[in-house]
């Protein structure tokens, strides 16, 4: 029965010789030396193997390194150095379970060394494998391994047992232990947590193992994984108002039972679902996020305060960030003295479309209005004079019909002058009207324009439920 979550990590090999200051880095470096020593040992390069073990010990004072170095010297025939490192081993680990065996082994090595007369075997050149005395074939199983047990929380009581049930190490986490190759089970206990026991865990010789134990408080756990078609969505579990517990893809142990889950991402509809976790279950909840039906128009103008109309309705003054239904919209931006801008913008679902509007000054229409006024006055004068001339013409025509019209009748000249003046008025009105049109059309500056940026996913969107308020940051740009 698994009572907790155990993560076993075997550090990867490394080759740096510098002494790292970071404890984790130091542990990794020590582990690399140990691995190298173990490899050299298997190759029969015992002296170099022993040196690697000792370098590992310099980085991490684990007794296993000394024990392994002693074994390597012993295999090479450096019986004295072997005995010395065994003695250091016992000093570092006075409670070693194999203390009696090691003490007997030291005595045997000292005696053998005395019989040799203190002559050490010849020092081999690097890479040379030398065995001065017939020794049993090197066995990796002779090499001890390192076992580190870390718990969350720290301070748990750790007991390491062999598969035979023999306690090979125990203590308070974090626990550092030297173990022989074999299979072991770990038990972690804490007054405030449920005890946790691992399954039998194989330990190979010359390895460094780090075991992390997540202690459960009062309930059994299961694994919950939440993945979504759009990564980075916020995941809320059980209590939405306390905030998101993570982002998809999200993995975390949860107590067994029913859990309410919300998955949110700006620009997408919130997905709410329930899961029922069974003990030890590794459940993956796949969420298909769908974009919302609206988007946002982020309109900015070089002229702050410009009035923004959407579908002929005033929605605010630039800059605005306005929610709109997805689709095409007619946007108009106006400001006194500036050319209005009008254009269509496509609002994408769940995305923010930014438009940068550049308002340009409208040319002055005063000359146009003045010209128009003058043209209108001239036209009016022309019409008036034309009507007067017309009336005179009718009078003269009537006089002529009566036979009383004289060739020197002053109305003939008056009518001629009036009609001529009317013509001049019309002509002048035409000319001035032409100027008016010119001034109306004259526009040295280009029209106000806008540049639409590519729609982006919403980066800021309101979150929460009833009674909640806040912002969730996320999305991509």
């Amino acid at each position, binding site marked *: 029965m698994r009572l907790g979550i155990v993560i076993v990590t075997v550090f990867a090999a490394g080759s740096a010789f510098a002494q790292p200051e970071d404890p984790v880095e130091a542990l990794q470096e020590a582990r690399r030396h140990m691995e190298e020593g173990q490899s050299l040992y298997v190759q029969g390069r015992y002296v170099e193997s022993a040196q690697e073990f000792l370098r590992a010990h310099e980085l991490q004072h684990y007794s296993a390194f000394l024990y392994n170095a002693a074994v390597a010297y012993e295999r090479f025939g450096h019986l004295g150095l072997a005995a010395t490192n065994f003695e250091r081993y016992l000093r570092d680990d006075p409670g070693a379970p194999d203390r009696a065996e090691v003490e007997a082994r030291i005595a045997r090595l000292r005696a053998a060394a005395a019989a040799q007369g203190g002559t050490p075997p010849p020092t081999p050149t690097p890479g040379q494998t030398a065995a001065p005395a017939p020794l049993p074939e090197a066995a990796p199983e002779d090499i001890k391994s390192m076992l580190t047990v870390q718990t969350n929380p720290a301070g748990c009581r750790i007991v390491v047992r062999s598969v035979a049930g023999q306690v090979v190490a125990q203590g308070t986490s974090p626990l550092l232990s030297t173990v022989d190759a074999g299979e072991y089970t770990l038990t972690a206990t804490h007054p405030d947590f449920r005890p946790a026991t691992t399954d039998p865990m194989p330990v190979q010789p010359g390895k460094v193992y780090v075991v992390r134990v997540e202690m459960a408080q009062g309930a059994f756990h299961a694994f919950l994984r939440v993945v979504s078609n759009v990564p980075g969505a916020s995941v809320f579990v059980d209590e939405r108002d306390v905030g998101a517990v993570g982002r998809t893809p999200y993995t975390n142990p949860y107590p067994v039972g029913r859990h309410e889950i919300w998955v949110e991402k700006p620009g997408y509809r919130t997905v709410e679902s329930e899961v029922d976790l069974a003990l030890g279950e590794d459940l993956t909840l796949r969420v298909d996020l769908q974009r919302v039906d609206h988007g946002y128009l982020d309109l900015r103008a070089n002229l702050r305060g410009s009035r923004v109309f959407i579908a002929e309705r005033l929605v605010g003054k630039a800059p605005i960030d306005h929610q709109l239904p997805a689709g095409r919209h007619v946007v108009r931006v106006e400001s006194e003295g500036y050319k209005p801008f009008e254009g269509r913008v496509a609002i994408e679902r769940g995305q923010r479309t930014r438009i940068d509007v550049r308002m340009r000054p409208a040319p002055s229409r005063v000359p146009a209005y003045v010209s*128009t006024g003058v*043209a209108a006055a001239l*036209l009016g004068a*022309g*019409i008036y004079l*034309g009507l007067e*001339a*017309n009336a*005179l*013409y009718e009078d*003269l*025509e009537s*006089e*002529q*019909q*009566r*036979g*009383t*019209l*004289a*060739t*020197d*009748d*002053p*109305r*003939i*000249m008056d*009518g*001629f002058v009036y*009609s*001529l003046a*009317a*013509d001049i008025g*019309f*002509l002048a*009105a*035409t000319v001035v*009207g*032409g100027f*008016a*049109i010119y001034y*109306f*059309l004259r526009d040295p500056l280009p029209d106000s324009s806008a540049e639409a940026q590519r729609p982006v996913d919403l980066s800021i969107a309101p979150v929460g439920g009833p009674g909640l308020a806040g912002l969730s940051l996320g999305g991509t740009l």
Partner: protein
Amino acid sequence: MRRARLALAVLATVPCWGCLLTNDFFAFEDTAPVVAVTEPDGFPGSGFGALLAAYESESLGGLLAVGGNPGTDVFVFQTLTASGDLTPDAEFSRACGGREGCDGLGVGGSVTWLAAFASGTDCLAMGAPATDSVIAFCIGGNQIAQVPGVGSVGRSVASAVGGSEVFVGAPDSGEKVYVWADRAPDLVGVGLGLGLEGSIGEAVAVSPDGALVAAGGDGQVAIFSWDGSAAALVDTIAGEPGFGRSLAWGDTQDDAGVELHAGGDGRVTILSGDGAELGLLECGESPCTSFGDALATGDLDGDGRDDLAVGWPARRNFAGAVAVFSHGEISGPVLQHSTPTADQRLGRSVAIVPVGDRGELVAGAAGEIYYFFCSLLPGDTAAVGERCRP
């Protein structure tokens, strides 16, 4: 933009209206029925239009003599060419200007036409009262006759239609009317011996057949007969002050003879050849001052009978008018300028110029003369854009 386009369209279309009107106004000057002839360049002095005398020459066509105040000159217009073309403002000649023996005489007091005089034909006789002279300009020769010392010889002149004698009024001569006959180069005073108070000779008129001569002035008119060598008083008619300052013979009434029309007192008195009053023509409004100051007879409506034109220069603040009385009528249209203006004095002189088988009215005004080609008489109205005549 829409407004601008609309304005441009309107502006593009309306000028045509004015152009058409302008052209049409020019046309009025060519087609108006009343043709004005202004004082010609070089006319000396003032009063152009104060005198009018119409004449129909067999060789020259219609001629109109237009004079001014005494001491000016007389201009002749050929109103109708021999071929029948109407040329109302065509200057034909200047009677006196630059002619030897004429300058300085002061012509312009009166004017009349003679068919022949002495060795000449188509003669224009002009009185020059300032020099007590009468000048006859003829095609073929000119003559001058004077009665020095009288002081008003030539105030009025008259001759019969086709006649060759000129009767000359001289109101300061007492009771005399002078006769200038082509066979006698000097003026011959005809002493009437009537014992009239005042003077006669402000106006003289000769009946178409030359048998009757009327002389008027100072409120009286004398009618006498003339047999070519001697005169015999027929009658004297007294009237209101001014009566007799204008005289015209013509057959305007349906009776056996011609009638004498006498004006000057604000009305026109129609007298028979023996001096009987046949009727009065009045202005029909008040005041009638100057109604009848100028008289002319002729056929204005083409009915073969004489009609009467009565000048009325003081009408309505001296804008003036001419009243036309058809044969036998006692009322008729009053012709005036289409735009009467003060001191225009239309009707200060009247004449009826021959145009074919009828005549057209000409009226003098202040510095102008007017041809009334449409007198509004029956059959004499204008169509639009056309003159009544020819």
